[in-house]
């Protein structure tokens, strides 16, 4: 199973109470306070579950999580054969 942009955008839109179309690939999720720390834990659980990976604490960064695009790029990099 893999994680899609739509799943992440739907998760965020649901949390914040806006339309999915309001969440673009580059919408800042954490650096603007759109999502809080409790939501962060839920988002990480969603990513871990859907993308079948375990987050390393050191990877919980704005670079990896602050937008839908960054999340997908992180998941792709993690799942790439090394």
């Amino acid at each position, binding site marked *: 199973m893999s994680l899609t942009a739509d799943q992440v955008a739907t998760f965020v839109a649901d949390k914040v109470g806006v339309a999915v179309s309001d969440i673009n690939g580059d919408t800042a999720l954490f650096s603007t306070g759109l999502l*809080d720390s409790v939501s962060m834990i839920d988002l990480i*659980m969603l990513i871990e579950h859907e993308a079948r990976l375990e987050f390393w604490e050191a990877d919980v960064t704005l670079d990896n999580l602050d937008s839908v695009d960054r999340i997908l790029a992180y998941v792709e990099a993690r799942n790439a054969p090394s």
Partner: protein
Amino acid sequence: MLAFTYYDLLAQNLPHNADRVAVVDGDRQSTYGELAAAVDRLAASLHERGVGRGDRVGIHLYKSLEEVVAMFAVARLGAVMVNVNYQWTVAQLDYVVRDCEVKALVVDERRAAELAKSDFAEVGNSIVDRAIVDRGIIVKGKNPQHPLMTAWDDLPASGPLPKVAGIDADLAAILYTSGSTGLPKGVMLSNHNLLAGARSVARYLGINSADRLMSLLPLSFDYGLNQLNTTCLVGGTLVMQSVTMPSSIVGTLVRHNVTGFAAVPPTWIQVVRYLEQVATELPALRYITNSGGKIPPDTLDAMPGVFPGVEIFLMYGLTEAFRSTFLDPAKFASKRGSMGQAIPDVETYVIDHGRGVCGPGEQGELVHRGSLISLGYWGKPDATAEKIRVCPELAPLIGDEKVVYSGDIVRVDDDGDYWFVGRADRMIKCSGFRISPNEVEDIVYQSRLAADVVAFGIDDDMLGQVVHIAVAPIDAAQYDEAVLAKYCRQAMPHYMVPRAIHQWAGAMPRTGSGKLDGPKVIAAITNNEIVFNTHPEIPKA
């Protein structure tokens, strides 16, 4: 100068400390002098709009330098700051506005846009059109062109200001917090409460002008507010940290040579895990503090290793009494997990109701005595009288002086240190936030999907507790749990959203007097007597 009012905390720095950095916010910083100038500018605009002594001003901003400016601008006028947690929904902001009749608001552009738009289906959004907020709304960022709103950047550079007024007994702040019942209540804090709290905590943490404290916690939370207050009291520096990710927090600790860092348990769990994976030297860090709940044992065990040479203070407080106890860091190794004893200038007692004051080995309810006791709840004299009252068991010691009943059951050990046992009521605590089960239940009823609902807390490794609800649907055939879950996510702040919805078949049991038998429902669920329907969209860890 001696400080009497909250504004004095800032003003006392101006004669000798004006050039010292007061606040760091990302790449920006502000000296005490610059901060005071920005405060005067905003205060002049609020004054021009008619905000005066005693008026409540709502401050609803993402953590930033501007939040601090807004707080002191309100205090400069002798008005009352009402910091509303940024995570709260528009409906909750609306509740606060109505509850304490907020006359003016300072919000950011995201919330301003939500307020200006009128498509919020429920109670929200009438808020900007209401006669209550008749002194206007200042918007940090883009002004959505609403007639009541003015962009902060468009405010005049200066304007006439009244003489600084007020006495230490004046109401200075209202902090909204939940209890075991009903909707959130506004805890009224006087200038005296805020200053006494800052002095007490600055004394036992040994805070001085060389300290650089990290402000990660919301300023709408007594524990978070006190980082700002103690910083100004001693002329130190406050480093704002709005992003809660551990990598970002640790980066700020290093980059800004932070000396003191306060957080709640979920943050400690993540930061400790991070430091275990990414060893980081923090040579400037002098002390760390925890409040808002118990840190899990494995995290506590790891703390001295990842924070070598750092004093670890475990603290306890409740908004109604601001701050109450701390564990002497010298006892951390031998008593990790204890709440310790009363902070300076405060007395606490443990009461076995109807029997007396508890001694070593006994347990009872913690009560708090001293000048940190708040003025009570805004507009709720009955609730105040229940929380802050004369304690018959203490009459031989303090007569008819009132104390705060915490609702927390603690055990006293042989040294007089306290250990948390549990709550005397149904209050739920998630990630440091107090949640009233009634408030959760009220919102679920508003969905019109539930005939009966019981909300309760379930222990959680990361968050302390999380909310679960048991629901007996109005129409079982039509009931769709996903619809209810979505309603909750939109109507509640994130920390309040139920992590599991347990569907109850048929009507829920009731007591002899016809009230829902909550304990019976909760027992049936926690004992797995009924089917466990976990939340469909939040996978279990």
